[in-house]
């Protein structure tokens, strides 16, 4: 989230698309209710199903899953056509005026540079025109035919209300009503917030869904303001934290990147990360990259990391592919190229797409290690449960270790919520039996392996032998010790560059925040963006002062928000070019003539003069990007793309299947279905009583929504002779499930491209362990497709068939 849950009360209009907050994030959604009750805010819901969020909305519109870009581009087009643009914001704070170089183009659903063979773009034409001074050329009058604004205008011109009706199945009048409501938020004193979740991310074009809304929010002037923003609701309690800390194949901590093979040494790695400002006087904060990188290397390898050995750059793995993401790992497993797998609090047998392929992959492992507080289907993937897990146990040669861990009630530490608050919590119970903390287990595995490498030697033992592991009890590092390491400290006395007689931080003391980090080896910090969380003032994540001066929703002294305890990202943009708040009643910051003051930590240097320094300090341009240059693989603007399995052809290019650069493996292509064989558009979701596969261990939640079902419209049920509550079989090219039919008015057939499109909803929760009845999940059916930029599997739009059926075999109760 750019903003916080508590900030939603400041909004005038909530748009929920790609999410179902009332159901999936009920206590956060209360802030929408608050805005409706006390500000008169309106709620718009656009979703294939009439969800629980829709049931309390002011306007609901149906949409075919996977067609959100068309809807959003059409809203952008509507705003441009009707002059509903926050012009001062758009001209000053976006790259609308930047001139794009010749050669950039878009035709037949594809941008310039497409290589069909490689299924990739040559993105060199997706860039600005640069002057001899090295800066990007701009035309503040927006007259230049190739300025971003005119290219955007041309790009979205095709997205008319008629096209929305044709592609999305949304009635034209409904679209126009919603577009009109959104357009009103171009006023500097009206804001809209976007709340989205996996309904936008789990597509082969997920990043472009989000970009389309972000661009709309920018031209409406809704980023950086109270009640505005792009608010990813996010999933697990610490999914934000694990992303921030870089527990991903392609990341290091704090959004530093894993090196690739092409970055043969540290100098080469840093050469593409200079982040020179692209306009005069701009901050381009990533210019500090090397300070964060060296401090990270020092946190990892301590004294072993020196200037002479490039801070142990070669201890890091170098990637030969964009990422060894989960789909690639299961593809490699199926090829017999993976021997071992560790699942810490993760249940891939139910969480990853094409369950048949996932199960086959696990069966080819030599060893599988699970760490979990609860039973998981993954730990028991070798156990036969009739139709629910039809495997040949004897043939599976995988050795499995199931390790019991503590759960939150027995643990201590911080979790980062979707609003970027790092909140500390304390343990309340004794772990059951021999269950152990994950930190203990990881330490024990590490210490044993280090000992083996000490004794026996082996493949490149250096990073293992030199890993900084200086804890009070090396066998179980304490949460506070780890948190202090994440924050970082001075390794030698840090002197003031302006006055070397003055020591800013003594050796061994915690740095106050990342502004004190250096790239000469004198500081260490595990994760720069978290620096400030645990400094010499103490554990700031444990702060519990809930006061909220003037009820802005900021709660500045409640725990700690990254970065620097900043509650709203880009908050400098809440004020105009001269530093006056766009809306005085919703002030966040203002320029007092000498510095920025207000309710939040300024997202700009405190003395950076307005008009000189632009608000988007992380971007080299200093402004936000309506045109993304080559930063996304599938286009500098969002363009309509169909799902890989779609009931209609792409009207922009009928030959184009899915995202032209979406990640697919050769072995999966044969498993894509067509609309002739699989006529119905399926989607997946979660119920408010459930949290993924966990709550089926809990009798209360298991009983509240006891049985696996699929939802279908009354029209489709009539057509197929399916009675409510009867058994049906639903199948795709990849698998088959049996479920109870819920025949509902919540789903209505859509008319898309002249065809009737029936939507089938498939909730997730059920498996074959726990207190709930046995059942299936959408992953038995969904395709093995990765998002073009980040390889997130698409669960929200695929094709199935359905027929009346009988109960599954293998007992209904787990």
């Amino acid at each position: 989230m750019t903003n916080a849950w508590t900030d939603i009360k400041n909004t005038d209009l909530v748009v929920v698309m790609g999410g179902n907050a009332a159901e999936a994030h009920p206590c956060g959604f209360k802030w929408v209710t608050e805005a409706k009750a006390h500000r008169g805010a309106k709620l718009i819901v656009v979703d294939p199903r009439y969800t629980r969020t829709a049931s309390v909305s002011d306007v609901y519109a149906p949409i075919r899953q996977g067609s959100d870009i068309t809807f959003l581009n059409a809203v952008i087009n509507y705003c441009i056509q009707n002059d509903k643009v926050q012009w001062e914001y758009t001209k000053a704070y976006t790259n609308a005026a930047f001139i794009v170089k010749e050669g950039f183009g878009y035709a037949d659903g594809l941008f310039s540079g497409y290589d069909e063979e490689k299924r990739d773009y040559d993105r060199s034409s997706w860039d600005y025109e640069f002057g001899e001074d090295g800066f990007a050329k701009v035309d503040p009058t927006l007259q230049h035919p190739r300025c971003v604004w005119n290219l955007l205008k041309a790009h979205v011109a095709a997205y008319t209300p008629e096209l929305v009706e044709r592609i999305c199945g949304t009635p034209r009048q409904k679209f126009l009503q919603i577009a009109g409501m959104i357009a009103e938020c171009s006023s500097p004193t009206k804001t809209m917030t976007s709340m989205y979740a996996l309904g936008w991310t789990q597509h082969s074009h997920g990043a472009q869904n989000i970009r389309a809304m972000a661009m709309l929010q920018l031209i409406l002037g809704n980023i950086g303001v109270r009640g505005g923003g792009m608010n990813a609701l996010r999933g697990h309690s610490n999914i934000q934290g694990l992303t921030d800390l870089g527990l991903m194949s392609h990341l290091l901590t704090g959004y530093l990147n894993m090196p690739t093979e092409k970055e043969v040494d540290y100098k080469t790695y840093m050469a593409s990360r200079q982040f020179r400002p692209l306009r005069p006087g701009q901050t381009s904060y990533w210019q500090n990259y090397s300070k964060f990188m060296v401090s990270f290397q020092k946190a990892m390898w301590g004294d072993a990391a020196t200037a002479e050995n490039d801070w142990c750059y070669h201890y890091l793995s170098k990637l030969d592919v964009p990422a060894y993401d989960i789909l690639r790992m299961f593809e490699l497993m199926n090829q017999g190229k993976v021997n071992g797998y560790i699942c810490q609090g993760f249940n891939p047998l139910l969480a990853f797409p094409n369950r048949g392929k996932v199960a086959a992959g696990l069966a080819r492992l030599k060893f599988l290690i699970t760490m979990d507080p609860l039973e998981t289907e993954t730990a028991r993937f070798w156990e036969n449960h009739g139709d629910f897990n039809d495997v040949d146990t004897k043939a599976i040669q995988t050795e499995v270790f199931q390790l019991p861990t503590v759960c939150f009630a027995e643990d201590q530490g911080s979790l980062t919520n979707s609003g970027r608050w790092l909140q500390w919590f304390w343990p309340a119970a004794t772990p059951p039996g021999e269950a152990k903390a994950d930190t203990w287990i990881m330490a024990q595995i590490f210490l044993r392996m280090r000992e083996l490498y000490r004794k026996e030697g082996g493949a490149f033992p250096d990073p293992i032998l030199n890993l900084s592991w200086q804890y009070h009890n090396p066998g179980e590092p304490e949460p506070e010790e780890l948190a202090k390491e994440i924050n970082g400290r001075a390794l030698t006395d840090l002197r003031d560059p302006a006055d070397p007689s003055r020591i800013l931080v003594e050796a061994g003391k915690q740095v106050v925040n990342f502004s004190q980090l250096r790239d000469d080896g004198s500081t260490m910090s595990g994760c720069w963006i978290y620096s400030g969380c645990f400094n010499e003032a103490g554990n700031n994540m444990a702060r519990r002062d809930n006061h909220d001066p003037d009820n802005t929703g900021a709660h500045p002294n409640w725990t700690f928000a990254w970065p620097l305890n900043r509650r709203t990202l880009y908050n400098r943009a809440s004020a105009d070019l001269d530093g006056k708040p766009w809306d005085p009643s919703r002030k966040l910051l203002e320029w007092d003539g000498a510095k920025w003051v207000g309710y939040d930590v300024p997202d700009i240097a405190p003395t950076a003069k307005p008009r000189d320094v632009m608000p988007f300090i992380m971007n080299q341009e200093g402004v936000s990007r309506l045109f993304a240059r080559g930063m996304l693989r599938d286009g500098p603007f969002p363009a309509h793309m169909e799902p890989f399995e779609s009931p209609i052809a792409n009207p922009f290019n009928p030959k184009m299947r899915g995202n032209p650069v979406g990640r697919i493996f050769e072995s999966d292509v044969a498993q894509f279905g067509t609309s002739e064989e699989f006529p119905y558009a399926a989607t997946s979701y979660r119920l408010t009583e459930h949290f993924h596969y966990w709550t089926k261990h809990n009798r209360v939640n298991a009983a509240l929504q006891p049985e696996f079902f699929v939802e279908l419209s009354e029209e489709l049920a009539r057509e197929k002779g399916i009675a409510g509550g009867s058994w049906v079989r639903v199948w795709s090219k990849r698998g088959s499930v049996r479920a109870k039919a819920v025949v509902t008015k919540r789903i209505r057939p859509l008319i898309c491209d002249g065809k009737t499109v029936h939507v089938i909803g498939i909730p997730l929760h059920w498996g074959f362990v726990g207190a709930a009845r046995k059942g299936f999940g959408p992953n038995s059916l969904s395709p093995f497709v990765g998002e073009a930029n980040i390889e997130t599997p698409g669960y929200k739009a695929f094709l199935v068939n359905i027929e009346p059926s009988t109960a599954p075999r293998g007992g209904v109760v787990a």
Partner: protein
Amino acid sequence: MNMELSRRGFMKAAGAGVAATSLGAMGFGGAEAAVIAHVRPMKLASTTETRNTCTYCSVACGIIMYSKGDVRKGERAELVHVEGDADHPTNLGTLCPKGAALKDFVRAETRLRQPMHRRPGSDRFEPISWDAALDRIARLMKDDRDANFLASNADGVPVNRWATTGMLAASATTNETAWATFKVAKTLGIVGFDNQARV
């Protein structure tokens, strides 16, 4: 710090005050001792309160956990009740249908209690000691790493990839656990390393 101002203490004081005042006003001052003698103390009055965060979604509602026993004093503690934390700015004491049933998650029958081991081809899990499990895991991992570690590519560039063992990290663990996990996985050279954010 307002943690020190215990809700339990507050309720005790407030409850006693209300009882004494109303009884006194009705002229039953003498009955007070008799009432106190047979009214059971509030069940939560003898528990330990702990501030925690709901483990489910990333709204991260504040919760108060009530236990018999105090783990911070080294005692055995059993969770007996969970409720929303009224001091928390986001949820203001409220909980959803999942959060309200958190106690049953913590005390689920299917909580794991001891390490288990499944031999190749076997149809069952068998108990294994922590030491035996961890020794065996370290051995399997080291052998696989030594056999399949790619130190450099065809051009002689050090690439240090161990791609034959992968790891999924848990996005319901703490940042501190995540950092310890990150250090171990990345230093071993595990490139097939992801968490739920990928999904």
